């Protein structure tokens, strides 16, 4: 195994870019929400300041090793997922079934947070974990169906090939079956990035931030960074699967922001579901639409 300097540089460069853009996405989210709420809103780089401030806390409470390890585990998973994505002309890691790898690596971070939150011993965190796991179980079915529809249509598990096929035959959403899959995926996406109506896990008015409740200081800063990377990776994943990927980072960025804005608009007009309603919802409409999409692609 020889040491590839260029790959290492690309990994570092891509990580820096993804983290930075992820923070900016978080800023866009807050700013756009503020504009919808008829406010001025924070500057677009506000999440970077927040993370810096959390890093600058002089005190870091720890509830044991697992508690510290949880956020790092989550960050690691997000980064790995990011590296498997074909971002423009960079695909750093690749395998024969990287679609499956990415799809499930994107869910691992939630497990990491749950791991840490569970060990904090706070009942609100525990409730948040319970809700988080249930949401994951609930959204698994439509999520899987959307991905099966994609795989059946393109006949490949390789993200790179999916992008290439889309470049030739046009974006996936132009295919009726995949348009349905896109709707399903968008609903699941709302839950994955933790926005209303599926911000059940944090639910400030019910369980006051849930898993995040006990985190503060440096662990919270890591969680923020993780969220930034995750947001970047998820929007990129969406753009790659349904919006034809991108040949350069700028094109990708535009598509990512478009995806983000849909999520923001949905989030600002819907209240929050309760956890049982969310599970019922996921197993009803998205699942039905997903099955139709799969059947159409057969």
């Amino acid at each position: 195994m020889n040491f590839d300097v260029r790959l290492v540089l690309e990994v570092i460069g891509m990580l820096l870019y993804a983290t930075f853009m992820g923070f900016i996405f978080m800023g866009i989210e807050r700013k756009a929400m503020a504009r919808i709420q008829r406010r001025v809103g924070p500057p677009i780089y506000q999440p970077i300041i927040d993370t810096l401030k959390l890093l600058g806390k002089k005190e870091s409470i720890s509830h044991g090793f697992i508690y510290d390890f949880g956020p790092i585990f989550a960050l690691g998973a997000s980064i790995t997922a990011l590296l498997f994505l074909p971002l423009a002309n960079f695909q750093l890691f690749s395998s024969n079934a990287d679609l499956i790898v990415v799809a499930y690596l994107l869910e691992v971070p939630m497990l990491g947070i749950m791991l840490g939150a569970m060990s904090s011993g706070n009942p609100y965190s525990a409730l948040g974990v319970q809700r988080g796991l249930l949401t994951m179980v609930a959204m698994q079915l439509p999520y899987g169906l959307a991905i099966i529809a994609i795989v059946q249509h393109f006949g490949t598990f390789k993200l790179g090939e999916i992008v290439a096929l889309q470049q030739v035959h046009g974006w996936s959403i132009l295919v009726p079956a995949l348009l349905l899959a896109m709707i399903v995926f968008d609903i699941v996406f709302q839950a994955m990035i933790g926005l209303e109506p599926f911000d059940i896990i944090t639910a400030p008015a019910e369980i006051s931030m849930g898993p995040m409740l006990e985190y503060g200081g440096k662990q919270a800063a890591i969680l923020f960074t993780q969220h930034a990377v995750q947001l970047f990776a998820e929007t990129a994943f969406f753009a790659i699967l349904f919006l034809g990927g991108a040949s350069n980072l700028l094109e990708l960025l535009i598509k990512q922001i478009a995806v983000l804005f849909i999520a923001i608009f949905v989030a600002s007009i819907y209240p929050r579901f309760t956890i049982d309603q969310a599970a019922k919802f996921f197993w009803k409409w998205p699942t039905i639409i997903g099955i139709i999409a799969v059947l159409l692609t057969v």
Partner: protein
Amino acid sequence: MSEKKNDDFISYELQEFKLFEPLFRWARKKSLWIVAFCTGCGGIEMPPLATARYDFERFGIMPNPAPRMGDLFLITGYVTPKTLKRIIITYELMQDPKYIMIHGSCPINGGVYWDSYNVVKQFDKYLPVDVAIAGCMPRAEAVMDGIMEIMRKIEDGTADSWKRYRENYEYYRKNQDELFGEGWREKEARRWLAWI
């Protein structure tokens, strides 16, 4: 690979890195998270501050329900002993550096409730204070002014209530125990400590 790097990162002490201190100060100033614990009547001026007319999120201020992540504790109005117990515990849950701003006349000297048997008269006997805003009820502009003041103090390093609390812990602890009776933490606070 990344895990190890980050693990090292957690363990080092930032106090030693004086070089970054101005950067952190700037970040602290620009990102004050308010603990969403509004005591007393001043809580009613918080929604206008957070919404369209005043919008303090412009300055990076936002309410946060988790005390561990909070920076600014706004005591918005009179404080009763029953609330003060929770305030003290919540304050101790917050992580350094943390700041306290008291809002309205009542925490300063009792205000209209100067002769009430259930209102704490001098809040700064029990917890240290950075900025106090007089008035009943202080207008939203006054609160914004107080927040600007605390930002200025953070930037030049004079917002040091968290340091004072550490240094004079015996004094504050003595006053708290005088008011609530010895052993209130063990007897009562333990029941809701983890959940507060």
